[in-house]
């Protein structure tokens, strides 16, 4: 049962990634693209967790943690670039 649920869940996340990708491609506003990218990161974290569960392996945890911790840095940087041009002032 869990196996099926895991695969359904992974399928959902994959679909979510596709939807993010569509928004990223489409835009139209820069804000939309950044949101889409940010969401992709979140979905990627979800996917990593699922991969870990599917494989019965918790060694991927750090990757998810790292992504949660630093994934937003690029989002912020993209935003700051638009807002200020110079991301470090």
């Amino acid at each position, binding site marked *: 049962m869990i196996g099926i649920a895991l*695969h359904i869940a*992974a*399928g959902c*996340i*994959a*679909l979510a*990634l*596709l939807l993010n*990708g569509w928004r*990223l*491609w489409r835009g139209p506003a*820069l804000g939309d*693209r*950044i949101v889409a*990218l940010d969401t*992709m*990161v979140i979905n*990627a974290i979800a*996917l*990593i967790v699922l*991969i870990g569960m599917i494989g019965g392996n918790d*060694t*991927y945890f*750090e*990757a998810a*943690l*790292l*992504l949660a*911790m*630093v*994934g937003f*840095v*690029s989002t*912020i*940087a*993209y935003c*700051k*670039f638009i*807002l*200020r*041009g*110079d*991301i*470090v*002032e």
Partner: protein
Amino acid sequence: MILLFLLLAPFVAVVALMATRDASRRLHVTIAAAASAGGLAALLSQAGAALSGRMPMVTIAWLPTLGLDLALWLDPLALLFAGLILGIGLLVVVYAHGYLKPGEPTARFLSFLMLFQGAMVGIALSRNVLLMLVFWEMTSLASFLLIGFWRDKAEARQGARMALTVTGGGGLALIAGMVLLGKAAGSYDLATILTRADAVQASPLYPAILILVLAGAFTKSAQFPFHFWLPHAMAAPTPVSAYLHSATMVKAGVFLLARLWPVLAGTEWWFGIVTVAGLATMLFGAGVALFRHDLKAILAYSTISQLGLMVMLLGFGTGAAVSAAVFHIVNHAAFKAALFMHAGIVDHETGTRDLRRLGGLAAIMPLTATLGVLAAAAMAGLPPLGGFISKEMMLEESAHTLLAGQALLVPMLATLAALLSAAYSLRYAVALHFGERRTGDVAAPHDPGVLLLAPPAMLAMLALGLGLLPMTLAGPLVAAASAAVTGGAAPDLHLALWHGINPALLMSAGAVAAAVLLLACYRPVAALAARVPAPDAKRLFDAAIARLVATLRRLSGALHVASLQRYLAVLFAVALTLGIEAAVRHGIAAGDRPTTSASPVAIVAWFALVAATVAVVAADRRRYLALIFISVIGLVMALAFIHLSAPDLALTQIAVEVVTILLMLLALHLLPGRPPRLSAPPRRLHDGAIAAAGGLGVGWLAWAMMTRPERPGISRFHWDNSYSGGGGTNVVNVTLVDFRAFDTLGEIIVLGIAGLAIYALLEPAARGVAGRRLREWRSNDRHSPERHPMMFVMATRLLLPLALLVGSYVFLRGHNQPGGGFIAALIFSIAILLQYLASGFDWTDQRRKFGEHALIGAGVLIAAATGLGSLVFGAPFLSSSFGYFHLPLIGEFELATAMLFDLGVACVVMGAVLMALAQLAQIAQRAAKAEAAEEPS
């Protein structure tokens, strides 16, 4: 040993002259003269031995593997030649003392002259053909320097270059010829080669050898059609002309023909080429000489003609002809050197060398005139001078020579040449010294001092002596030298003015009579000759070279255009071509390893990656957008690494991606917005084709490899020994810090260097043009005024300790679980960069306590020191050790030197990353500040 002294004396003089270049002219001349005189004395001391067949020899091994030894000998031919070189050299040195104007750099002049002398002596004495080549090319070089001595004169420079090009080029052909000769004869030892005529002449290489050797000899000896450089070499100071371009260097070609006569002569090829070339040159030179007005030009063309005579004689292939040639070498050296010096005196005293502006000098410069007339008479082949005897011998030999089946062809042409020689010689003697008095630029010229007069006078006496007492003065030497040339016994030699009435005498007398006749009606003949189109060799040569250089420059410029796009296109094309070649030749089929079926998630991720890649390409000039798509690729890569069992790679990828994006955004800030497209559609199509082919190729390689079964390899050992030998369960990390720690050491050094280079690039960017551009820099975008968004700032304050903690954790566990120094360092760096992002450069920089340089330096040192530590224990560099320790309360824990190494890694990585980003941020910040200062507030 004496031979070695002979060879080295001139070179020692070169060094001495250069060392004393600021000393007096007297000292310079003394040094040079001493070298020549000493050499001459040494030579004479060995003359007896050389002539009696107890040939002095010396061999010093130099390049035994090549067969190039410093092997010298003094056979009669060498003796003759070396004697000429040293004897005339001595006279020229003395003459130069009087000739050079005060203030002219005698040391330079004489050192070049000595360099030349040494090289010539080397040619003469070499008993190894490769050694001879060394000296051969050196003479070209010395000649180049000497012709160009008056470097301010254009004709000197051009003449020098032309001489070097032609004789140096010939020398290169000679190199090929000599090496082939050595190959055919089985040795580079001259004595051996001379005994292998049969082998050489039977070799299929013989024609090539002959032609290449002759190319060397003919260019050096100014044989038609390679003669043209010689007249332009007259731009050299006259002592040089006298020495190099009449007496010695140009005779090196003749010498070479004589030297190799036993092994090369006697064939149809030899006879045909050498005789015809000599004959043609003799006629041509004489003909031109007759109508020149510059004294040195007359002498130059006469030299060409006389050299042709010698070459022709050697071409005949008979012993008697060889004797004639050898004797003429001596004669010509005497009278032609004398004549050049004579011309130099005239030039020196009257300021001109134009025959039309000179005349009647006999009355005011009697001594000069006497020696001039004497020498010219020798050149004309008049009795009782030496020139007469050798000319008689020549005519005698030509009378017996059949060319192209014609018995009369050679004698008639030889007579014609003799006629012309007599004519220009008499013209020189008569027009200059007799008739109406014309004195050039100077009102009352007079005989020069003894320094200028004595050397040519001695030579003129010699020319006379060679006629009056030929057997005494030259007989034994010429006989022995001729024997050396022919390789047989000494010929039955009778050098004498009178041989009775024979065809030669008749031809000679007729020629002289006709010459007188010709001079009598010189004017109309000259007018007629002037109509003959005479190509200006120098102009043609210069134009040809100029055209060649221009064409080559265009081609080379077109090829080496500064274009990265071209560099890369060619590189890709080459790699592609080679890959396709291999694939076509041997086929690259997929293997039979069972594939793994892909999950829908994987397919989606793949799709995302492909779409993002396409998007990056499509959005390439919308740089910001392209970067966002790059982020997607990075994300998918990280996911792929996780899916494919590489957590360390995933961690690294995630962290590196963030840092890279920050870096690119910082740079992007300073680049112009959206630039116009640069390349036209065909170009893009062409690049697209390369790109598609490259992609398919690499993809196929990957496919072929992945579908092949794994092979047992070294990583099995790594797996098995990771825990037991490396003390860690994360095999990737143990590989990085232990099995292949040496790679990692190199890798962090790369990173450290990158940091330094970046610092070096950005540190001075605030100055100069870049600084101005930075100050003028102004973004077109309107920006929000808020610098430090509150929520962001607050979050980073909490994140900093958290991130440092996570980083430390990742560092400590890296040996056993995914992680390690590199990833930890990236996390640390990102944590600090986050502060920069949130709170600005200054704020953060003030609070940072460690410099990047220190981090990089310390990191490399820690890593290296860890490696060196193992030396103390007698283990190789970078040997690790680890142990499990037990402490109360804490329990068991592991300590490994590899972790210390990893600490070094972390320091360097952090230093380099911070260096790159902080430096870049700082410059961006400076630009922003400059912008803010400009804005009205």
